[in-house]
């Protein structure tokens, strides 16, 4: 009796379980190769940057094809989607960096002390600056902040602390949502229609710009303040009531200070949002070449309108005016970025730590 003991062929357990797979370095090497090829073409053959990006994208499409051969259809689809999703992110980054690069590249030409300390009064051709526009922007936005912050904060306090979800509060919430969607130019028309009733046709006033900006700013302030007040734990309120503190002092001394960092962040972001608004100011604040510090008297320049007008009506020769437009755009962008940074820092450093 002879028994032939067959030794089973060696089994690759991993392969049995997972099927054939691309080597783990496959995607990385392919992507690296694509970048190297594109960079070489960019540097040596003078392909422009958009084409280089397209080449990287085209080569990375080889990955799903390779995967389809080795791994099968399902995994190939998965890899294709990974490539597409990642490319969509890169695609979305492209305008951001393009905008930053273009504005910095073209805007730094005119920056200098003169640019910030001179107005455009009696300036033809080269020279001149944005002093009048900077002053106007700060005044108009400042007044808009003064109008919107109290209204927005008290509305949020009403919604969170006093309303108890009654019908009025539901209406207010709904209409705040509607206000968020008002196009900025409609806010400008509203301010114009309002001021025309009192001052007659063709009215242009800085304060009108503030009113228009407030219409855009109030809903942002209400929303962010409301979210922050809701985050304040109820135990704090109850502890305060238990000590016999009246409601209004509870709100002003306990609830508001706890939520303050978040509220300040929200207000700063709201300012950053409206300071770049052009359309309403174009309608109601107008444009001028002179410095005007009086919100209630006549036309008032502002940075975004200045940038727009300089680009639109550059005069002869046009290049100086267009340079100033880019300079104003860069200044505006820096202000907005600075406000965003301040908002992040405030919320990072001053928000209460205990509750996380």
């Amino acid at each position: 009796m002879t028994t032939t003991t067959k030794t089973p062929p060696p089994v690759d357990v991993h392969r049995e379980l997972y099927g054939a797979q691309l080597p783990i370095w496959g995607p990385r090497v392919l992507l690296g190769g694509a970048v190297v090829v594109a960079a070489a073409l960019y540097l040596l053959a003078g392909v422009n940057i958009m084409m280089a990006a397209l080449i990287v994208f085209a080569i990375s499409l080889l990955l799903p094809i390779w995967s389809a051969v080795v791994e099968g259809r399902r995994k190939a689809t998965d890899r294709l989607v990974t490539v597409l999703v990642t490319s969509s992110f890169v695609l979305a980054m492209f305008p951001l960096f393009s905008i930053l690069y273009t504005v910095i590249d073209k805007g730094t030409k005119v920056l200098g002390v003169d640019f910030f300390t001179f107005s455009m009064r009696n300036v033809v051709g080269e020279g001149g600056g944005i002093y009048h526009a900077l002053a106007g922007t700060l005044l108009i936005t400042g007044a808009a902040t003064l109008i919107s912050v109290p209204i927005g904060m008290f509305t949020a306090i009403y919604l969170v602390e006093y309303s108890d979800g009654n019908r009025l509060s539901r209406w207010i919430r709904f209409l705040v949502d509607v206000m968020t969607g008002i196009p900025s130019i409609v806010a400008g028309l509203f301010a114009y229609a309002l001021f025309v009733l009192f001052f007659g046709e063709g009215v242009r006033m800085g304060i009108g710009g503030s009113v228009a900006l407030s219409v855009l700013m109030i809903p942002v302030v209400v929303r962010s303040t409301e979210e922050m007040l809701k985050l304040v734990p109820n135990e704090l309120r109850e502890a305060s009531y238990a000590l016999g503190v009246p409601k209004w002092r509870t709100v002003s001394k306990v609830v508001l200070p706890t939520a303050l960092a978040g509220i300040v962040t929200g207000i700063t972001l709201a300012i950053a949002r409206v300071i770049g608004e052009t359309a309403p100011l174009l309608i109601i604040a107008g444009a001028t070449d002179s410095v005007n510090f009086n919100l209630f008297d006549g036309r008032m320049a502002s940075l975004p309108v200045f940038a727009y007008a300089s680009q639109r009506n550059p005069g002869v020769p046009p290049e100086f005016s267009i340079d100033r437009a880019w300079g104003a755009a860069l200044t505006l962008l820096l202000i907005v970025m600075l406000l965003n940074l301040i908002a992040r820092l405030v919320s990072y450093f001053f928000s209460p730590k205990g509750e996380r």
Partner: protein
Amino acid sequence: MTSTLDPRRKRSTVVRPGDRIFSGLSTSAGILILVVLAGVAAFLTIEGVPGVLASPDEVKSGQSFLPYVWPLVFGTLLAATIALILAVPVAIGVALFISHYSPRKLGQVLGYLIDLLAAVPSVVYGLWGIGFLAPHMAPIYQWLEDNLGFIPLFAGPASATGRTILTASIVLAVMILPIMTAICREIFLQTPRLHEEAALALGATRWEMARMAIFPYARSGIVSAAMLGLGRALGETLAVAMVLSVSVGTVSPNLISSTNPSTIAANIALSFGEASGKTVNVLIASGLVLFVITFLVNFAARAIVDRRKEFSGAN
């Protein structure tokens, strides 16, 4: 008898003047918002109605209201729709990348980068569109006309400056991308962990997991994000006003020629400075039309969001 039944003893709380003032202030602030919004509608109507009723020879355009406003409505809808078609797939892709594909720790930083796009003022977008994008798009439009000219959208003649409605739509798409990405990202992150893990445990690839667990959960959120983006695109003024080279009264689907329909908002911005008399009223009336359109779009978006709130409560 001592008055143990003094009615004043029944009052459990003391109302202090401070309390009255404070609640009065906050209630009136809330009511003020209602008044402001009613004011927006009322003042626009008061100033707009004479514009609707104005006879053709009283206004600059020499047209009565409907023929005047129709090409503008067409341009507004066309530009916003193309922007939406371009932006929605990218926004979903970016949101998915940030929420599920990128490393967890990087996600927040990448999200912040996208939010930076939202911080860029519209006039800067306008300058970028006219100074960078339009010149770079012009050769592409020429190519489109030469090779795809049989499609009415690309009939041409291609604009040499690149200042077409397609360029304006691309700028609009970039502008509405951050808001849509932010909403989609939030909703993708809210997908129940268990749904995702169940899909993966059944052997789904990451894409199949996204298709079976994330998208069904997020569908209404994506729709409302798209609607909010549409609302933004409809009302955006300056970027369009600067980029577009307008010829008044055009209604054509041609995306790459130099004769483009204007949008309501851009038209107001461009014409308001020189307008006087009844022409101003016509412009305000067109603003009212824009207000109504965006109101309807936003209203629909909010309704979808609210409906979603109800059913996600069961999850």
